[in-house]
């Protein structure tokens, strides 16, 4: 890649970044992953803190021997981890990927337009 062509590609990144479509993609992505991260971290640390500071509550037996509140809480961590994995993968495959692909196509279009403009000059 020549230096000139390189600068154009970098410019096209800037151009794409400033489009409302790209900003919508970023917003959509962050709007999903940030709250989800906050949720699972809060839920995990709630479990850790309860186990550490409320051992009597977590140690209560529920029904059969060995089945304690804490064990159910812990198994709940598995359930939420699996559930978040499924929810995120579905959401990303159906909602995020089309937007990302569209933005990628837009980048190619900007590059093509730049290249055509460079030829005219």
């Amino acid at each position: 890649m020549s230096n000139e062509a390189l600068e154009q590609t970098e410019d096209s990144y800037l151009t794409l970044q400033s489009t409302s479509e790209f900003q919508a993609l970023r917003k959509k992505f962050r709007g999903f992953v940030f709250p989800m991260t906050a949720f699972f971290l809060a839920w995990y640390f709630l479990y850790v803190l309860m186990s550490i500071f409320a051992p009597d509550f977590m140690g209560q037996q529920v029904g059969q021997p060995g089945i304690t509140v804490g064990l159910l809480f812990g198994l709940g961590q598995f359930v939420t981890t699996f559930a978040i994995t499924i929810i995120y993968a579905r959401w990303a495959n159906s909602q995020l990927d089309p937007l990302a692909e569209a933005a990628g196509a837009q980048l190619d279009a900007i590059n093509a337009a730049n290249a055509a403009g460079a030829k005219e000059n």
Partner: protein
Amino acid sequence: MALTLPFAEATSVGSPALNIAIFASFVVITLVIVIRVSAGKKTAEQYYTAAGAFTGRQNGVAIAGDYLSAASFLGIAGAIALQGYDGFLYSIGFLVAWLVALLLVAELMRNTGRFTMADVLSYRLKQRPVRIATAISVLTVSFFYLLAQMAGAGGLVSLLLGIQGEMAQNLIIALVGGIMITYVLIGGMKGTTWVQIIKALLLIAGTAVITLMVLGKFSFSFSELFQSAADNSPAGDKLFEPGLKYGKNLTTKIDFISLSMALVLGTAGLPHVLQRFYTVPTSKQARKSVEWAIWLIGGFYLLTLVVGYGAAALVGPKAILAAPGKANSAAPLLAYELGGSILLGVISGIAFATILAVVAGLTITTSATFAHDLYKEVFKRGQTTQDQEVKVARIASVVIGCIAILGGILAKNQNIAFLVALAFAVAASANLPTILYSLFWKGFNTRGALWSIYGGLTSSIVLIIFSPVVSGKPPLVEGGPSQSMITNTAIDFHLFPLDNPGLVSIPLAFFLGWLGSVTSKEHNAQKYAEMEVRSLTGHGVAEPVNH
């Protein structure tokens, strides 16, 4: 049920010859596969990342193979057998951590980098200083992890092969290291990945068999299993309540919070885990890799719960503690109790395979960092040929392998369990803040990265040195050796009360990254745009990186 088998006082269990035979057949079979899939000359891309040729599912299985190290396989089963609830609590951090990788790191890393973690971290910052800092941090984390694995090999040997002599143990460690180097040199990332895939399948299948056999003994009733575990444990019903390990006093409680933080934030900062995301072609496949990894790792830890309580019920804490490997021997002893020498042989073979596969993955990652980041980008300033770079990577693999062997021999009788926790703490402090800032924060810059990496690295290591894991823990019995790394009770220079530095060093590294960035004016808008567009769309990944 008391264990009346002769090995409680003997030095080994089962038939060493059978254990060796099963392990040897694993080595032969995987070696043939490695040679078949990957012989021949390699480009740098093939050597470091198998040129992104794996599918998401294959990579997900390989990630599980890489992640379920001997520490999680043997260590967690033992922790659950001895400490019940607290052992289970420990395993959950290792699983939940994968959500950080899934949501925030895997896809964006795949879209932005090509070879190493430093590719991403230095993308929009000043190349040389950031690459050097990242390389130092990668080498440190991987070294601790490597040492823990190799030292673990020594302990396993004495348990499983009945080898007690100093010299013989050293030879076995050297042998394991030598086989690993062979895999890496012949197979590169492709061969190593196949070893990890095979190992993961064997490990999960073996654990599933043990789980079914345990449940079968208790007519598939969990409450019978739990009841029997409690009856057999000195802790009784306390086995199912929090506190056996971490509940002693306020310090151990805060220490556990620190450890939890390091576990949950460290996984997505482990270099050998990040390296695996480059072995698939697209971010969609990277997503699929983590999905598979989460199912397999989560499923595995659920099985471990049964294995751990099964060991408590059928082997008993007394026999476990009396065995040479202590807690680590819970799973092998349970296998022997359930299936005699043959099942024990299979589980031992899998345990060795585990060490082999994990160490090989670490070696590839470390050699990539050395050859790509330090040799090519820093020493040669990008002016070198592919052949030259791969040659350096191969030499680095051999050197790292030898260091691992030497370290394993020196550390084999040390209390090294803390090394894995330390590797997670350093990864969470020195790597993760910079990874997240550079992917998500526009205002991040070189000063922020350097302060965060060096600050996180230094603080975590200094805190460890002055923590009770190195010196000053009280002895287990009056007049006995200290439980610290330095066993001499007269030497005590611990100043920091916690075993794990994460609680201090992780927030500090995030803070330093922020502070460094806001006090520096540097900002490369073009590079930021390029990185952000690439990270979210995946466009431009296959093109050469123009720095």
